[in-house]
Every structure is written in structure tokens, then in C-alpha cells.
């Protein structure tokens, strides 16, 4: 190997691994930088507005039109019936461009030239997308709970069930984000990956989840079906949009959502890890 010259004596020793942060440190860095990216985007404010509009409309319906029933649990259940719609929109917008931005714009040439494993970068971004989504979901729950308490008081309020429902909601968000990340790792265009997430989840799985039970087939493969466990976790009697009877059992709901989160996240990691940055 031809030597070009000798580095000056004060140059750093070339023990290349020295000083490079660990994967776990890189994870938190990636999460922090992605978080600051998300909360500055107009999309975050837009989604805040969207969530506000949805919960506002639901509150109006409950309070003034009497939709939702006569107990706190029924008010909650009625609101949470719309959770999956909200979750899909939030997940698509938060995860749809998380990876495709690296292939469709120059950010990949900046971030991927740094000594960080792509899988770790992806997981950090996934973590950030999850946290931001949970803030939005938190607003939804906060309004729904406030509404129920305002109408029916705290006596006999199903706090434990709400806690379980929030946990299931978080799981649903993880599953939807994983799907969005998967599309994002496949497509170059952030807009295309967002639209694909919405189309597949809403129109594909949405149709299957709505229609298959009518034919006596349980749509166990649909994350939207799994997400019905979120509303079903609230022990309400009476009418809700989808009806608790159409919901999966709690273990099945958890299994579906967890399965989506794990499988689609693994696929996105594999695609991201091996995908070439061209153009």
C-alpha cells in the first residue's frame, strides 16, 4: 500500500473505534434529533388541529346530541370507537416520511455518512415518532376522559379500564407506525409512503375489518381489528360505532397489534439496512 505521508505528531491516533458512541447512546441521540425535527414541523401543528377538531366534534355530539349513552364508560367507549381512525392518520403522517426522506432528499447523505448503524437510526426515529404520536393521542384521551367526568362525575369511573385502553392505544400506534415506517423504507417519496399507509390501512384493512365479520370470518390479520380492543377495553353497555361485540378478545387484540409492530418494524429495518442510496 503506497504511503502518502505521515500525519503530524499531534494528529489523533488512528484507533478508529475510540470515541464513537455506543449503539444505545446513538439511539437516544437519534431519538432526540428526530423529536426536535417533528415538533418543529407544521405537520405536528396540523395534526394537533386535526385531533382537536375530532375530539371537539365528538364532545359536541356527546354533550349536545346525546350520543354516547348514560354512563362515563359509555361516553368513553363511544369516543374511543374513533381511535383507530385517528391512530392511522397520526401514524401515517408521523411515520410516512421517517425513512423515505433519506432516499428522496439529501438528508440521507448527511445522516448516513455518520458512523451510526442504520437500524439504530431507524429505531431512534421510531421512538421519536411514537412519543410525538402519544402526545397527540394523550390529547384525545384527556378530552374524552374530561368529557366523561364532566358529564357523569368520578364515582365509579373506570380508571383501570382507561389505563388498559391507553396501553392498547400505545400498542396500536406502535403497530401503525411500524407499517408507515415499512412503506417509508420502500418508497422514495414521503408523500407516497404516507398515502400508501392510509390507503392500505383505511381502504384495504378497513374494508376487510368491516366486511369479513359479516361473513363470519374473523379478520385476525388486520391491525384495525386488533385496535377495536381499545374501545372494547372500556366495559360499556349500549351502542358504540362498531359495537364491542365485533372486537377481538384482549389477548388477540394485543397479539395482532404487537405482531404488526414487530413484523413491520423488522421488515423496515431490513429494507433500510440493505437499501442503497442512489440518485
Amino acid at each position, binding site marked *: *500500500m*503506497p504511503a502518502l505521508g505521515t500525519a503530524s505528531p499531534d494528529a489523533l491516533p*488512528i484507533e478508529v473505534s475510540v470515541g464513537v458512541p455506543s449503539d444505545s447512546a446513538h439511539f437516544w441521540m437519534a431519538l432526540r434529533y428526530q423529536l*426536535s425535527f417533528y415538533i418543529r414541523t407544521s405537520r405536528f401543528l396540523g395534526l394537533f388541529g386535526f385531533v382537536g377538531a375530532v375530539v371537539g366534534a365528538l364532545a359536541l355530539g356527546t354533550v349536545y346530541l346525546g350520543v354516547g349513552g348514560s354512563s362515563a364508560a359509555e361516553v368513553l367507549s363511544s369516543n374511543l370507537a374513533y381511535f383507530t381512525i385517528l391512530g392511522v392518520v397520526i401514524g401515517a403522517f408521523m411515520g410516512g416520511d421517517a425513512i423515505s426522506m433519506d432516499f428522496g432528499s439529501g438528508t440521507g447523505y448527511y445522516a448516513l455518512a455518520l*458512523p451510526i448503524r442504520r437500524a439504530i437510526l431507524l429505531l431512534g426515529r421510531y421512538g421519536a415518532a411514537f412519543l410525538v404520536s402519544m402526545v397527540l393521542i394523550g390529547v384525545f384521551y384527556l378530552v374524552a376522559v374530561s368529557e366523561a367526568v364532566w358529564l357523569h362525575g368520578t364515582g365509579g369511573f373506570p380508571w383501570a379500564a382507561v389505563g388498559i385502553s391507553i396501553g392498547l392505544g400505545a400498542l396500536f400506534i406502535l403497530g401503525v407506525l411500524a407499517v408507515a415506517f415499512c412503506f417509508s423504507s420502500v418508497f422514495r417519496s414521503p408523500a407516497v409512503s404516507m398515502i400508501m399507509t392510509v390507503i392500505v390501512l383505511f381502504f384495504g384493512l378497513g374494508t376487510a375489518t368491516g366486511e369479513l365479520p359479516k361473513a363470519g370470518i374473523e379478520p385476525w390479520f388486520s391491525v384495525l381489528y386488533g385496535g377495536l380492543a381499545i374501545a372494547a377495553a372500556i366495559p360499556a353497555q349500549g351502542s358504540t360505532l362498531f359495537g364491542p361485540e365485533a372486537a377481538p378478545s384482549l389477548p388477540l387484540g394485543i397479539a395482532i397489534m404487537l405482531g404488526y409492530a414487530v413484523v413491520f418494524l423488522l421488515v423496515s429495518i431490513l429494507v433500510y439496512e440493505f437499501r442503497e*442510496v442512489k440518485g
Partner: protein
Amino acid sequence: MSSIEAVGLTKDFGGERPALVDASFSYEGAGAIGYLGPNGAGKTTTLKLLTGFLRPTQGFARINGHDAQRERKAALSDVGAVIESPEPYPSQTVLEAIRMASDFRRGTSQNLSQEIDGLDAKLDLPPLSARTGRLSKGQRQRVVIAGALVGDPKVIILDEPSSGLDPKERILIRNLFKDLQRDHLILMSSHLMQEVAEICGHLIFVNEGRILLRETTENVVGRFRAHVVDVEFDAPVAVDRIRALAPLVKEASSLGNLRFRVTFGGTRLARGQLLRALQECGTVLTFQDSSLALEDAYLTLVRDGPNLGGSVQ
């Protein structure tokens, strides 16, 4: 010691011809290597293979002894790279973009402000609070270069680093890399021959995916200068008469009524034969090496390949 190594690197995108074919080179220590070739020659492909943006169809690349594919994190741990047109997150400020690179590379912001002051002095960075998404192309390029240099990586890989810069900015960049090449290993592709000649002590010429020549800049300039002479007669001579001296004369062009530029075989023997042949065309007043610049060497190599007395390595 810093090192860059390419062994039989081949990349085939499935087009008419592979983008890169069996490219091999290795350098270690400190210095700058200019990677030259026309558009589509395979320069960026090579740099992307070295930095793990692309996977080779055959062969492998190592940086500081680490495989660029299988050990990407270790390979890039002491590398600052500017490939294509990198962009930090548009919502990031200049400071955040540079800090992110520092964090990922070194995991600490210790001495970062001092380091950024140093980079600012050399690169004339835009205001640190400015959003990178609102910067001009030149400003953004300087921020990206600062991001590649923060943490003082010892291997620097640059793809057309002066692209999009105005003349003042190019001078800044040129001076910066002239300084850095003393204790860093720099591999840079460029179209700007003057920039390469000033910064780089070594050159790699590539065209149509194949490495044509690897040489020191001094040797390349010297060798191509020796292939071309300027001759002056005391009376007008038809250029066709000089061209008729083929195959000894490969090419002749008129620089006026009395002066001609003549390309020949390049050996000392051929040079002597050429002088004698020219003297038969008329009285030769002057006969001297042409001051062919690197640009001519580049154009000649790209046009004729390496068979002008050079050995392909």
C-alpha cells in the same frame, strides 16, 4: 495510520455498462488524492461504495482497515464525507446540524464551541442560529463541510466539494483542504483541475467506469508536458507539412504563422527524431516543452486512454 483501500470494486446497476469495473487502489498516511473523470465516469459511485451508500457487485472497500459494508459503523467512525448534495434536517439550525454530526461521531459536545469557532474562521459559516433549510446552496455546502470535519475525522471523502460555491467560497475551501491534507487523508473528486492540482499530490483518472491512471500529480503533469512541444520556425510552414510527419507526429496545431504545438510519442528518442524531422520543414528557432496543464492531461487521458506512456496501476 489512516487508510483507504478499494479492491476490485465493481458496481453494475444493470445499465449498458457497469458504473465501475474492477477499481483498485490503496493509500495510507496523510495526503490528498484527486479523483478525476468526466460526468458518468464512476467517481461518485466509487465514493459511495467507499462510504457504504452503495453495495459493490464485486470487490470490497476498506477504510482504516474496516470493511465499508460489513463494518460500516467502524469504517465511518473516523471519516468525514460529503457525497452528492447532503442536507441536514431543514428545520435544524446551523449549530444543531454541526452538533448532530459531532454527537454521532464523538458522542460529546466537549470543546464543540471552540471547534465550531475554528471551523467558522476557516469556512465563514452562516449565522449559527440560521435554519439550514433557508440557506443558500453555497452556505449549506459550507455547513455540510463543517459537519464532515467536526470531530476531526482523519479520513475525508469529498464528492465535488466546491459544487455550488462562488469563487470566494472555492478559495476558502481550497485553502482549508490544502491545510488539512498535511495530517489527514483526503480523497476528493472534482472537475476543477486547478483545485485538484493545488490540493492533491496524487491523482486517479477514471473514465467509463475504469481507472485509467494512478500517478503523482507531479509525474502526470511532467509526463504530459514531455509529450507536447511548442516549435517556432523562422518562416511560415504549412501545418499539414508537420502533420505529414506521422506516425512520429501524433497531432499538430497552429499557434500562428510561425508557431505550432506538436504532440508526439513521448520518449527521448522520439523527441530527438522529431527535432530532426522538424528541421527539415524549416529553420527551427525554438523547440520547447509545451506548458500543458493538468486539464490537457485530463482531456488527453479521457480521449485516448492511458496508452500515452503511462502504466495503469
